[in-house]
């Protein structure tokens, strides 16, 4: 099954909307609650990153009987040093974003902790692609 959701860069009033839709859809598909919980954390953090840093983005979700693949593709500034960005506490968020309680440098570590598999690729000046994979244990 394939689903797509749009993310608007900079629009914090809509942040989390796509993650909420994905959560509802996974519940309807009767996905194990523990997997939904981890998927929601990883997806929300990735969605907020697109809102905080990029101009726009699309989430592509594919679910089959073995796995969930969530791919977030954004048009934005990109990440020059992914290894550095993955470090707990490292953030390039604006002061406005930090005042809201985001941008504490915990987003990417949260994604890594909760996803079964996390792949990030980025091109500076073009955008970032994040792929979150969740496996249904058999």
């Amino acid at each position, binding site marked *: 099954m394939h689903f797509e959701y749009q993310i608007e860069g900079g629009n*914090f*009033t809509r*942040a*989390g*909307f796509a993650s909420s839709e994905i959560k509802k859809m996974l519940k309807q598909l009767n996905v194990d609650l523990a997997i939904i919980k981890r998927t929601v954390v990883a997806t929300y953090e990735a969605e907020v990153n697109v809102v905080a840093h990029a101009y726009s983005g699309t989430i592509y979700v594919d679910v089959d009987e073995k796995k969930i693949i969530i791919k977030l593709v954004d048009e934005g500034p990109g990440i020059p040093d992914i290894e550095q960005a993955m470090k707990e506490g490292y953030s390039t968020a604006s002061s406005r974003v930090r005042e809201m*309680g*985001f941008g*504490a440098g915990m*987003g990417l570590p949260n994604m890594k902790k909760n996803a079964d598999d996390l792949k990030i690729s980025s091109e500076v000046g073009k955008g970032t692609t994040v792929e979150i994979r969740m496996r249904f244990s058999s």
Partner: protein
Amino acid sequence: MTVEQLKEKLGLKVFGGEQGLANEISGGYVSDLLSDVMGNADTGQIWITLQTHKNVMAIASLKDLVAIILVKNHEPEEDTLAQSNEEGIPLLGTNMSTFELSGKIYELLK
């Protein structure tokens, strides 16, 4: 203990989300960093914070938290309140500081 019982015991103000007052509290989490709550709070907990913008409701909903308590007389923004009512997640308030409120709730729940 339910959210309603906690509200009664501590004289908390109810801003919105009354539909969820009967929900049972499993514990609590205290933080003003949203990713901290996202990563570490758990289903059924109440969340104590001073953040008043709409994203706190998104997090409470995604994490299945049972209520949010705003400290030190902070008031929710309009769209935060609207989402609280829409989702039925109570949004409560107090004049207490985070330290004082957390201590009292910890005693009541332990």
